[in-house]
């Protein structure tokens, strides 16, 4: 605090070099604008290059044919799209109840519970730091963990199930965090009103608080979907690489991101790799747009109702 005051004071003393300062300012502005420009240019360069190389490859045949496997790089990506869909749905189904449940507990019950008993307070603190730790773990560690626990120890092998369980662990912190935020934005008056009308606590939560917090929770889910689609390392070691469509959750398959990797490294079909990557990027852009729209509705709801 004092250093800032000092610098303000020293500024006052240096009035004579105003012209110099003005030149510095122009230079500084140029520098800062350049940084921003470079950042945006990089975004457009990468996305533009991938789309320009990939979009011409995409046609109905590409989307509806199965990858031909091996090193030919022939065929399309139909099974990878469906496998990715399976993966996303399965992972979300596993992760959402756990994540939303955890968030509900942390927001609604944890306050009273920690006041009641020191042990519970400690457990809750541990749970909270668990969420933070898990949020920072890199995805390859989740892959390693999934490989050790689900693929090897539980003998589930390379399958949709092992991949989804590992993926659920990956997105759990995201869902918990966003759900917690969403639940916190529900005004206290809602809860108090419901309780005063005689409803039980869990009735209040499930019928009143949760629906109100829905947009925020949905944002978290959509964010997780984006993460799952983009992730590769974790599925590389738990899903396997079979180009056939998984016929059950115990079968192996190939997600779109994995397909990009395999096309790029094994075959020389870089154009197909770019095509698959374009589909990936377009899905991510779509998801980002959805998040923006949903969160805008969320803020409108909060500000509007208030």
């Amino acid at each position: 605090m004092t250093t800032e005051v000092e610098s303000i004071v020293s500024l006052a003393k240096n009035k004579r070099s105003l012209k110099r300062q003005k030149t510095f300012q122009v230079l500084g502005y140029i520098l800062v604008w350049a940084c921003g420009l470079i950042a945006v240019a990089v975004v457009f360069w990468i996305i533009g290059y991938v789309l320009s190389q990939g979009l011409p490859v995409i046609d109905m045949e590409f989307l509806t044919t199965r990858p031909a496997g091996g090193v030919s790089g022939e065929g399309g990506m139909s099974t990878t799209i469906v496998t990715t869909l399976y993966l996303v749905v399965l992972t979300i189904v596993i992760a959402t109840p756990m994540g939303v449940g955890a968030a509900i507990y942390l927001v609604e019950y944890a306050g009273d519970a920690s006041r009641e008993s020191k042990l519970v307070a400690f457990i809750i603190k541990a749970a909270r730091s668990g969420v933070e730790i898990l949020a920072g773990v890199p995805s390859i560690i989740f892959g390693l963990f999934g490989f050790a626990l689900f693929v090897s120890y539980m003998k589930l092998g390379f399958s949709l199930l092992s991949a989804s369980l590992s993926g659920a662990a990956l997105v759990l912190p995201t869902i918990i965090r966003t759900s917690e935020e969403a639940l916190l934005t529900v005004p206290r008056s809602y809860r108090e009103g419901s309780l005063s009308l005689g409803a039980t606590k869990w009735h209040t939560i499930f019928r009143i608080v949760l629906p109100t917090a829905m947009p925020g929770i949905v944002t978290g889910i959509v964010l997780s979907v984006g993460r799952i689609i983009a992730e590769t390392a974790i599925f590389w070691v738990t899903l396997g690489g079979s180009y056939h469509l998984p016929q059950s959750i115990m079968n192996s398959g190939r997600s779109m991101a994995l397909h990009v990797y395999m096309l790029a490294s094994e075959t020389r079909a870089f154009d197909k790799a770019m095509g698959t990557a374009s589909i990936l990027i377009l899905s991510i852009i779509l998801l980002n747009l959805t998040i923006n729209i949903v969160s805008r509705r969320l803020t409108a709801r909060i500000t509007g109702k208030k």
Partner: protein
Amino acid sequence: MRRKLFVLSILVLVNAVLFTACAPELSLETEESVSEAEESEADTESEEVETQAETSEGLSGQIQLAGSTTVQPLAEVLAEAFMAENPDVMIEVQGGGSSVGVTSAGEGTVDMGNVSRNVKDSELETFPELQVFTIAYDGIAIVTNPDLELPSLTVEQVKDIFSGEITNFSEVGGPDEAIVVVSREEGSGTRAAFEELVMETGDEVAVITEDALLQQSNGQVRTTISTTPSTIGYLSFGFLDESVNAVAIEEVEPTVENVKAGDYVIYRPLNMLTNGDPNDLAQAFLDFILSDDGQVIVAEEYITVD
């Protein structure tokens, strides 16, 4: 209320009867294709129809293969042919390298392991139940980037290049460029076979230089060598194409004929392993591979067992 209940129970009964009487199955057969099949069966001209009807009886199930990336494309083509004759069968082939083939076959994670070299004694000690079936032979070619022309090399020269003794292509009759060595990861059967046949010849055993770019499959080696200048590496015959330059060894071109004639010396067996006796489906697949039909497919890019 009574009438509603009555109507409802009638509906339920009718449905139950329909359901038990004619249990429909999901299938794609249209009425036209069914009648076509009947017509062709009535035709007595082709024996093929009869033999196909015989072989497609009864074989169903699923087997998984994993291991050598050299064997992978061959196994996939063989699997496609086998599955065409036996539509109720599903054969999944994955890569990972020959060591994956040994470990997963030995541990029972997959039904058959693919290995592109001889099985080592130490491996037989760890998994005493392993059975080895040779399905083909494959040569290893020394390849360079297509912009690089090299005269014939001796085995000794190849050894010195890959160990880092020779650092410039000019030393072996090529252009004046620093040598970039491309190799495989340690679990690769191709690498193990290469080490046994090239690096361990002569008086001293040499090791592959640690500056080598390491790739995880034949496909990746081919991609890297074809797109990066000044590279040299080793590649299975089945992956040779116009994107890389194959170098003659001891004045002998790397072709299937030369291996058969015994002139080209760098070759190794392609094996499939099972833990104990192969199960029925695996045995049927093996019989198919070793039959004339299977060996015809092998002969396209590799060397048949005889």
